[in-house]
């Protein structure tokens, strides 16, 4: 050992600390080391993720290319119609990025050990904010890039845009990301400073406003006054979407600028780009100033407001649960009870579940007010399948956000579970039953509600109920299985686990699964109901006998797909989980 000899009058620092350079060094080294260890240790996983992302990108590109090509045949590609599409698309992303950036910045600045470490260094609060903001923006916007680039490239090719359009669209995207990111981050800081105890209420309130507003708008949009696919119908539809083209919305500037860039109009392209970039700069400056002045006091307030709350015991419920689910192994029942407690005691989980499913229920209850039940069988069938699709999509976001990270979060506590006298696979089965047990009653109830409001027949209601059951088991299997196959034991923030590569892959696989099951059964139903009149008579493209045959085939195919989606990921997950060393 070499004795340590401190300088008797050592200067605290010899020159001004350069936090910018320090953070640049940190980001560069962390990125380089992460990539190197990924390439060395898990080349297959890295390759699989890159391949899946590539396939997803190409798939989306094909979808957008086909859609733009279709629109182009009506000569509407260069007009207002594309502006509407872009405006709506970027408005949705604006809202999503606002929430995701806000949540990630809040977690990074107030709940991470890194924040405490950095706050004890000479780094200024706005520098720490800049570092965490960059990290949060990268996390929250890579999926945004994956979604938006295929659309913009496809539009550029179909509209025969000049090369400059593609460069401009990239610059537009980068500037655009900063707007919702900065606003979300500034909101997170203000909430932490002034409402540290009400942060969840604020989040839930904001989400509620957005979702209720969105549903109200959607229901207006769906109330088309005339026959579909006529110019009158299109004008009416566009009129109802005009809110997305408000001149003060950044999504409108994006849409306008990109359309002008594709048309080769350089001056307008630059003008709108500067509008977007100037606002991005302004909002970032605002967020950074808020961080400079409020981050330290806000951090202190957030830490000071963590008070312990005594929880009531669940003995009666536990006994009832054990009796009701006697057919499950006792270890599995105990694990489910543990997860149920966590679910109930984490408002982020149950509130989101309640908000989304509650709002869907509200919409389904109001179906008759919208007179959907009086429409032709063709429309009622279409709406019933759309309702089923929306329910499944919301369920997939729930399983991706909350069920997928469960195993990763369990890893840190594995010393407890690992010492218990139970098989490792029981842990996975416990998660699966927990997920399906929550999802199944909620979604079945919604679908029965939707179908009864739409006055669907018994056969169609039973068919939809069967589909929902398949989807619940499949989505639970995918999330639990992939969560065990690609765990992230280092990350403590479940939203980051869900937003990472594995979480996104899980969401993509879930979407493909939903699309396969819903499409398989929706097609024969659509072909059967398409020609029926109000009384349910008249002939569709296929007759009753053909309908029965094809629904049976599609039902069998859905069952097979559902079984594969449930069993294969779970088997992969169990095998991987049994090999993991903690």
């Amino acid at each position: 050992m070499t004795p340590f000899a401190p300088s008797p009058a050592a200067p605290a620092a010899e020159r001004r600390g350069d936090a910018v350079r320090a953070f640049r060094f940190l980001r560069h080294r962390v990125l380089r080391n992460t990539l190197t260890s990924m390439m060395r240790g898990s080349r297959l996983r890295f390759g699989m993720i890159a391949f899946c992302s590539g396939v997803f990108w190409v798939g989306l590109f094909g979808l957008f290319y086909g859609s733009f090509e279709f629109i182009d045949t009506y000569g509407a590609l260069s007009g207002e119609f594309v502006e509407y599409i872009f405006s709506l698309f970027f408005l949705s992303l604006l809202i999503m990025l606002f929430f995701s950036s806000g949540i990630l910045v809040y977690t990074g600045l107030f709940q991470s050990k890194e924040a405490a470490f950095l706050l004890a260094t000479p780094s200024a609060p706005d520098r720490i904010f800049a570092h965490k903001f960059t990290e949060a923006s990268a996390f929250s916007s890579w999926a945004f890039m994956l979604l938006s680039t295929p659309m913009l490239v496809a539009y550029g090719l179909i509209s025969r845009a000049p090369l400059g359009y593609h460069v401009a669209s990239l610059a537009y995207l980068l500037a655009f990301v900063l707007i919702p990111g900065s606003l979300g981050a500034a909101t997170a800081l203000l909430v932490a400073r002034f409402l540290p105890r009400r942060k969840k209420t604020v989040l839930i309130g904001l989400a509620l406003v957005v979702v209720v507003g969105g549903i109200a708008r959607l229901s207006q949009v769906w109330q088309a006054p005339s026959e579909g696919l006529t110019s009158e119908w299109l004008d009416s539809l566009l009129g109802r979407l005009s809110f997305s083209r408000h001149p003060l919305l950044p999504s409108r500037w994006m849409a306008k600028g990109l359309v002008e860039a594709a048309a080769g109009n350089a001056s307008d392209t630059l003008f709108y780009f500067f509008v977007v970039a100037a606002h991005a700069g302004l909002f970032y400056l605002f967020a950074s100033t808020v961080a400079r002045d409020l981050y330290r006091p806000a951090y202190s307030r957030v830490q000071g407001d963590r008070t312990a709350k005594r929880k009531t015991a669940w003995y009666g419920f536990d006994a009832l649960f054990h009796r009701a689910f006697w057919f499950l192994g006792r270890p599995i029942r105990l694990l489910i009870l543990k997860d149920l407690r966590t679910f109930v005691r984490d408002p982020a989980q149950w509130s989101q579940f309640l908000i989304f499913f509650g709002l869907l229920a509200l919409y389904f209850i109001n179906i008759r007010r919208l007179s959907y039940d009086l429409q032709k069988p063709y429309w009622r069938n279409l709406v019933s399948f759309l309702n089923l699709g929306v329910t499944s999509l919301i369920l997939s976001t729930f399983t991706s956000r909350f069920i997928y990270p469960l195993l990763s979060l369990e890893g840190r506590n594995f010393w407890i579970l690992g010492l218990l006298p139970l098989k490792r696979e029981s842990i996975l089965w416990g998660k699966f039953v927990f997920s399906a047990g929550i999802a199944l009653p909620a979604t079945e109830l919604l679908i029965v509600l939707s179908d009864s409001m739409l006055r669907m027949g018994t056969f169609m209601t039973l068919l939809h109920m069967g589909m929902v059951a398949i989807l619940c088991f499949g989505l639970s299997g995918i999330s639990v299985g992939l969560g065990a196959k690609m765990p992230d034991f280092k990350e403590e923030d479940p939203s980051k686990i869900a937003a990472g590569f594995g979480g996104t892959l899980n969401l993509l696989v879930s979407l493909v699964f939903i699309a396969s099951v819903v499409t398989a059964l929706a097609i024969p139903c659509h072909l059967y109901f398409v020609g029926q009149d109000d009384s349910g008579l008249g002939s569709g493209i296929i007759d009753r006998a053909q309908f029965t045959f094809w629904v049976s085939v599609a039902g069998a195919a859905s069952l097979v797909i559902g079984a594969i989606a449930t069993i294969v990921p779970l088997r992969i997950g169990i095998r991987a989980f049994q090999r993991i060393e903690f």
Partner: protein
Amino acid sequence: MIDLIGVTKRFGNKFAVDGLDLHVRAGELFGFLGPNGAGKTTTMKMVCGLLTPTSGTVRVGGFPAGSPEARRLIAYVPDQPYLYEKLTGREFLRFVVEMYGLDPSRAGRKLEELVDTFEMRDFVDDLCESYSHGMKQRVVFASALIHEPRVMIIDEPLVGLDPRSARIVKDLFVSLARSGVAVLMSTHLLSIAEELADTIGIVERGKMLAVGTLDELRERSAHQGPLESLFLKLTGGDRPIHAYEPPRVDGVLAASATGEEVDR
């Protein structure tokens, strides 16, 4: 160097620190003792500027706690220190060097010196994610010392360290204090406080119960025993303990150990 005057910190209705006065001079090693939840960590976080006091004044080197000037003087080693998992130990130390804006050539020499002091040469170029707890602690101590702080705040310094590493750290504290650094150290290991501290402060429920040298504390409390019994007396920890009685193992009437054999 560290001055807390009438400091109170409330978390909701709970007083974590209640009218605390505490002074640590340059060159003094202050042992900060107290039962779990007494307010030691909260006090240290206020000195570092991580928490702002509800009332009272906290100053470091004459500067308000949390000010950039105060933070330049401080090195803080929390009970659960943070390391970037995807950096090597050396890269982490370089990051700290950059953060404090130290002269590269001088900091480079200092870095090598600390690598030798804490015997990290075998692992300093591996990623921190592969380190044991003790290895991480050594890197954290090195990072705390690399900018030559004037005030050292350490929360539970010896947790997870092997005997040799613990010896290194204990010697380090003494040499730091002798060189003029103010050291504020919290610990539950009373023998460490007894062995190292120039001054001992005992807190409970946010209030300072007693402060002084070990001899002064003994004199004031009229108690001549070891620090442990003095501490338990002051904090009310000498009340009767409900002893745990392990269940009897069937078939074992009595067991006694003789040499390497166990007789039943």
